């Protein structure tokens, strides 16, 4: 029998760094040159198969990057098992913003959350402002996973999600507390907010 794990993943980062494009590439393998700014939080799912007996279903919340919606972000990263903090390699300010997201996650989110720092838009390498070394160094200091992607070409997109899937604790089967959508038929009722991710003991969770 194959085991399916379900994890809640949230995307954070400054406006226009390509969060929605990254998800669109990952979930539908598509890319739009012109995407409207996300006003809200989009919900998508994608399943990755790790091996013959293990699949991981990501429940992805793609959040709005605009500053005015910042206060709503905690609603989406609370109870998340993993977070992808995205910056734009052609905008050095977006890395500063990413750092502040990482700080906020480390302070406010679940202690066992797996955080990945993701530099997007490698197809625009010519206009690069954030060097790989700088980002990698910061990620190492903070114990984050790190990778670069291009939502436009697809480069590195699945790698970063796969790496997260492998990093997540796959010891507890099936319904993880972060899984919010009731998938079993007949399951009624809502989300038990008291059922926090019981993983404070899982010390291996976020040490890279």
């Amino acid at each position, binding site marked *: 029998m194959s085991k399916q794990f379900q994890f809640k993943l949230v995307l954070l980062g400054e406006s226009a760094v390509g969060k929605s494009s990254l998800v669109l590439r990952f979930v539908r*393998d598509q890319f739009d040159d012109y995407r409207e700014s996300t006003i809200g*939080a989009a919900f998508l799912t994608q*399943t990755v198969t790790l091996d013959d007996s293990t699949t991981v279903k990501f429940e992805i919340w793609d959040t709005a990057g605009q500053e005015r919606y910042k*206060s709503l972000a905690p609603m989406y990263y609370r109870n998340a098992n993993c977070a992808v903090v995205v910056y734009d390699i052609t905008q050095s300010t977006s890395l500063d913003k990413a750092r502040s997201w990482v700080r906020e996650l480390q302070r406010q989110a679940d202690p066992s959350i797996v955080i990945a720092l993701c530099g997007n838009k490698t197809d625009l390498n010519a206009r690069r402002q954030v060097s790989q070394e700088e980002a990698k160094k910061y990620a190492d200091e903070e114990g984050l996973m790190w990778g670069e992607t291009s939502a436009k070409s697809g480069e590195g997109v699945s790698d970063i999600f796969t790496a997260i899937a492998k990093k997540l604790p796959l010891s507890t089967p099936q319904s993880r507390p972060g899984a919010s959508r009731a998938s079993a038929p007949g399951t009624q009722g809502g*989300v038990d907010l008291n059922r926090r991710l019981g993983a404070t003991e899982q010390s291996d969770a976020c040490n890279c």
Partner: protein
Amino acid sequence: MAMRIRPASKDGESFCHMDPLGHFRFESSWSSISLFLFKFKPTNGAGGANPSVELVIDHVIPIIGEFSISVALSKRNTVDLRNPSSPLTMNQPRTELRVTINHGHHLSPDQNTEHITLLANDLQRLRSVLEECKRLNQISNENVGPATVSGTHAWVLPYLSTASPAFSAVPFDVRLSNSPLHTRLSPASAGFPGDDLADIQLIREEWIPRAAKVICDKTKTRRDLKIRIGTFNVNGNLPTQDLGAWVGGSDHDADKMLPPLKKLSEITLGESDDKGDELSGSPDILVVGFQELDLSTGALLYSTEAFRENAWTSAVFAGLGERHELYDKLVSKQLVGMLIMAFVKKNVKECFEDVKTTAVGAGILGVMGNKGATGIRLSFRPKHPSGAPSLPTVLTFVNSHLAAFEDMVDRRNTDFHDLSSRMQFVRRTDQTPETPTRNLPQVVVSVFDTDVLFWMGDLNYRIDLPSQTIRTLLTWPGLEEVNLAELRKYDQLRNAIRERKAFEDFKEADLTYLPTYRFAIGFSTDQLGYDVKRKPAWTDRILHMHSKTAPVKQLSYHGHPSVTMSDHRPVSADFVVSCDVIELSEYEMTTRKLHRQVLYMEEEEAPPKISLEPSSIDFGTVGYLRSVTRALEVRNIGKIPCAFRFVPLEVEELICPPWLLIGTVTGLLLPDESVTVSLTIDINCEMAAELNRFRPRLEVTLILHVGLGKDHFVPVSAKYEPTCFANTLSYLTRLSGPIRDVKSADDLLSEDEAKNAPKEFMRLVNRLMSCDGVDASALFTTRGDLKVVEIIRECLDTGKQFVFPKEYTNSVISVGFGEALLRLLDSLTEPLIPSSLNSACEAVTSKDEGFEVSLPHPSRASWRSLAYTLLLIRNCVAPDSFWTNFHMPP
């Protein structure tokens, strides 16, 4: 004779992929077999007494003719990461199977004959179901040759006609149709959508009949149904008086004692329809409920005697006077002392169909009939102008007698819940000529499965006041209205309804008649004729409840003191029910069409998409008692229907802050459809009291969740302009200038610097003192123009001079100032005289005593304001006229 086979898929929860497609079961009758497809019924928060999972029939597919069932692999994409050389392989199907079922018959042109598609992932169980289907299909084809649904599968027809709740002729629970839908959806918040699948189902089920009625609106007509209801505890008596006042609404011969029954019709002859106006025309239906019809002990044991019922039937007809010829007795139901009878006008008699009765005992041992209820349920189906049958409006009438004695209020509440849950009407499903009735499944419906529910009877609720107080209030001259209002506050039934202990969500018109219990004759009575040993009470009541689709207007609610033959007085009420007359076939066709459009919306591959216009909402400036509304257009720009709902930030929180009202909290949109959601800010006194302290910006981000889709953010903002209303006097004295100019706590004067009395207050009083040549008697006694009050308030808030448009006369302005002062005092968050001193003040009989009543911590502001108010009252107003006509603003 149905035989049930339950193959391996009995515990089908894990069998089907999607929620609504849960369960397979087989039912076979001789050689005719049908496949039943069940879905899970979402349990409703309200009224859902049974927490267990319920299944409802979703589809019934007779296994005949071209019936087929096939399975294919589903095309759901996932990423396969086992092969590192291809980073994005998107076409790896999982073990998910698509089951397609084709109907083998064509019942009628509008019947849904499209194939049904389900998703499943349990290969083993699916295989056994498929094999069984194939086997049964073979049997079916071998046995009867060309099978027809109306022939060999006739037994399945009722299921087909009621297969979906949307088509069902049984109305939804009237209590649910009154509770806002969003309160029944799963708990959800930002980032936690709750149970989207169940929510979509609920939203859809509510939407279909509503949308169908909108579509049928063009061809529908309205029929106002006039209903008169009466209740009477007759204390075991036989009719000895004219009941005209009670049943006919003619109170003219109120005090006449009319001994023998036979003469009644002669006397009342020629006097009818004299109660004109709203009651013009006699009621279409008259429903009367009696209690204590028979008090003999034998009646408890064998109670079928028709003698008393016949006597009261004659008395009702006699009471109708010459109009009795217009009526027929439609139906009656008796249980020991309780009798309910319905009389209908002959010319509309054929519009009443599906007449059912029920009776439930609640007395000794919980079942004997000395207490309990009897009920009548009928469908009102007036002919549509086209001549075709119409959609029924279901009316239910309950006559009950609840537990007696003042301290048994809990028992009465329990009786209500017990009776309302145990009363059931058994109705057969739609009868058509080709369906033999004996095989029809019976459907049991509750008293709440109705469009309108009337509940009458001797409910026995009393007044929680001392006997003498009640009698004093009832006899105090000149203040009947006020005193009845005071008595109403202590009425046990009103309080039970308010506290949601019984008769929840029922409506009752104001009790403006005198208590109807308990009257006596002779020495043991008070001056109104009430028994001195029992507290007078409103025991006899008529309540109602209705769904949104059948609005009810109550025209009257009266006691009838002229009918004196019992220790109770009878009570009557008149209602008008607005019934939609919708062609049944058109409605059914429409609901089927709508049903098809939205049935599988949660299984569509395309994501639901909506757009919001505008993307954020700025109300500009808002203020105290200034209602501002903005529109938000929600449009479905996706390819599939979508359901939406506003959700709060946190599960237990409100969807929006108290200062904001959302007009439409949940809805369903077909592709390209849009709905305008109204957003209203209306700051009342309570909110103003909180906002006045430096909360100029009102900001919130609403979260609009699309079922199985995005959370949309709608930022809402407004600038609040503070007002001098809804503050404390001491706060007002610390304002350095007009309240609008005070931006922060730093602008406030310190306690020591505070003024003697609020400037705003002084401005009002000074202005009133200088109102020369104005009729002072009008001050405080006539209502002021609210426009003037608004101008005054604005001037106080901004510190500007009082300037009024020319159209207002001096006296209107002066009265406006009086009104403004009263409203300012009324809006204070701490009253001028602390409420703790109210009783002490009431006891004061002289000026000297008045000085003795001291404020515990007298604030200068309060003292000064009080002194000015008293001075004003003395100077401006003639004391006599003031005290008799004094009013407070609502």
